[in-house]
């Protein structure tokens, strides 16, 4: 199945965007230059806020009229009241977080629903590299060496499902995709996703 693409949106972001309800309150963590927020504001009339560590990128967002805070994700999310947002988006950042469990707990407090996406470490090409080369794997999605990677967490789709179950999140939606980072096109992977998907996208909410 090939998803219809909103214009100018990366494939994984398009999947996330398709899950956002019009007019909702959205917090985008690590929003970069604000591509997703700007798209959602224009096409889904959301009330959006972004948090971005990089000063230049945060400034770019503000210059394009978006509400964005320059700061550290884990500190900034602490200040919001409970359920301040309908959706909190953590796109391709979980693998770089020192305490993912603490962060997700915080996100599920301030957001009614949390969307998490990350590169799938159990993709078959990554497995092959470990198996045959015996080296820390590199791929288009994980292009770094062991000594300079910001990706300090190794996560697979199976790991995340299990984590959610144990910590007490319900996975409301799940989408495994096969795409390249900057490409606009991609596919949804329906079978053997833990082996074949390059990214996983999950919509979770806290069990009540």
């Amino acid at each position, binding site marked *: 199945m090939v998803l219809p693409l909103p214009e100018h949106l990366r494939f994984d972001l398009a999947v996330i965007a398709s899950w956002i309800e019009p007019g909702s309150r959205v917090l985008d963590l690590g929003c970069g230059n604000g591509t997703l927020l700007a798209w959602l504001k224009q096409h889904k009339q959301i*009330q959006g806020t972004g948090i971005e560590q990089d000063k230049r990128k945060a400034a770019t967002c503000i210059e*394009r*009229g978006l*509400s964005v805070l320059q700061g550290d994700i884990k500190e900034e999310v602490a*200040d919001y009241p409970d359920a301040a947002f309908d959706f909190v988006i953590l796109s391709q950042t979980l693998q770089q977080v020192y305490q993912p469990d603490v962060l997700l707990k915080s996100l599920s407090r301030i957001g009614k629903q949390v969307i998490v996406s990350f590169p799938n470490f159990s993709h078959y090409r990554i497995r092959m590299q470990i198996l045959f080369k015996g080296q820390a794997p590199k791929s288009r999605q994980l292009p770094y060496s062991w000594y300079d990677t910001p990706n300090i967490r190794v996560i697979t789709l199976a790991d995340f499902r299990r984590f959610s179950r144990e910590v007490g999140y319900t996975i409301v939606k799940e989408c495994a995709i096969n795409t390249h980072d900057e490409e606009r096109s991609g596919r949804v992977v329906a079978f053997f996703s833990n082996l074949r998907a390059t990214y996983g996208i999950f919509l979770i909410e806290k069990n009540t």
Partner: protein
Amino acid sequence: MTEKITKQYFTYGDSPNVQLLESGLELGPITIAYETLGQLNGAKDNAILICHALTGDSHVAGQYCDDPPDTPPGWWNFMVGPGKGIDTDRYFVICCNVLGSCMGSTGPASINPATDKPYGLDFPMVTIGDMVDSQKQLLNHLGIRQLYSVIGGSVGGMQVLEWCVRYPEMVRSAIPIATTMRHSALAIAFNEVARQAIMADPSWNKGSYYEGSGPHHGLAVARMIGHVTYLSDEAMRKKFGRQLQNKEDFSFNFGGDFQVESYLRYQGSKFVKRFDANSVLYLTKAADYFDLKNVENTVESLNDLSHKQSKFLVISYTSDWLYPTYQARELVQALKRSRQDVSFCEIEADCGHDAFLIEDSRLTNLIRGFLDGLATA
């Protein structure tokens, strides 16, 4: 092209309609000097109020009609004007001299109608809130019921925040720059040293000096202290280092060897020519009293805004040690807790607190983009 501006005056508060001040005292009549740029539209919804810093004035941009051609323009000329960050082709910009100052608005150097002499220390203490109330009077006079934005740096930023708490329904957006929710002990300390410098000058004469020469030396020292707080370690190191002024070697006396000494002396003497010493006393005290937390507490007072959401853009500078970034972040935190729509950006700059007065396209672009974004919000 530089815009041609006229300074205007608005007077209100004739007895018995005097202004009740936060201290409980009354003041009137009050004159507010102000300048405007651009045109107020028919709906009167394109007005932007710019609040100046401690010793600033209403001359925010452009030149006065009778200025000789080479006269320097207003203090934020790079920001305010046709096609600039705050575009006077689109917005009607108002800037008032604050109550208690000496640049056209009523202050301690003004004539007390009760005595026909300058107020001196008979002038009642005014607060940032009192300044905002007087600006509100001017807006009423101009028929403006809502501001598109209130923008200001430093003590001007305090006025911006006070506006949001006192008259939230009148504020569509706010840009507090290089400012704080409450004056820190450090900031109060510097102000107190500045005040003591003035009051220790024998010519100060308990504030009654308007017939004589005035406390020139004390005022100059006060300004020198102020200037140190507006710069930064890095800025001073880069600008002056240990370089000597017009000499090869130490003079081994107190005439002044270093460039930084010469610079501060020059700034001090320049300031004496344009500013009133008593105004420095009153304005620094108003800044010291400023504490948004006093209005119950910040979150609660900002919560009042929640029924009518304003948009905020908070800006700080990395090298500002007078109102450091952590204080801006405290403000952002309070705004987030009260569910306000807030943006925040810290700008990398080595020139200290005064950075917002120095031309920088990053600041201009942030403000332009934020104001544009309001139109589509």
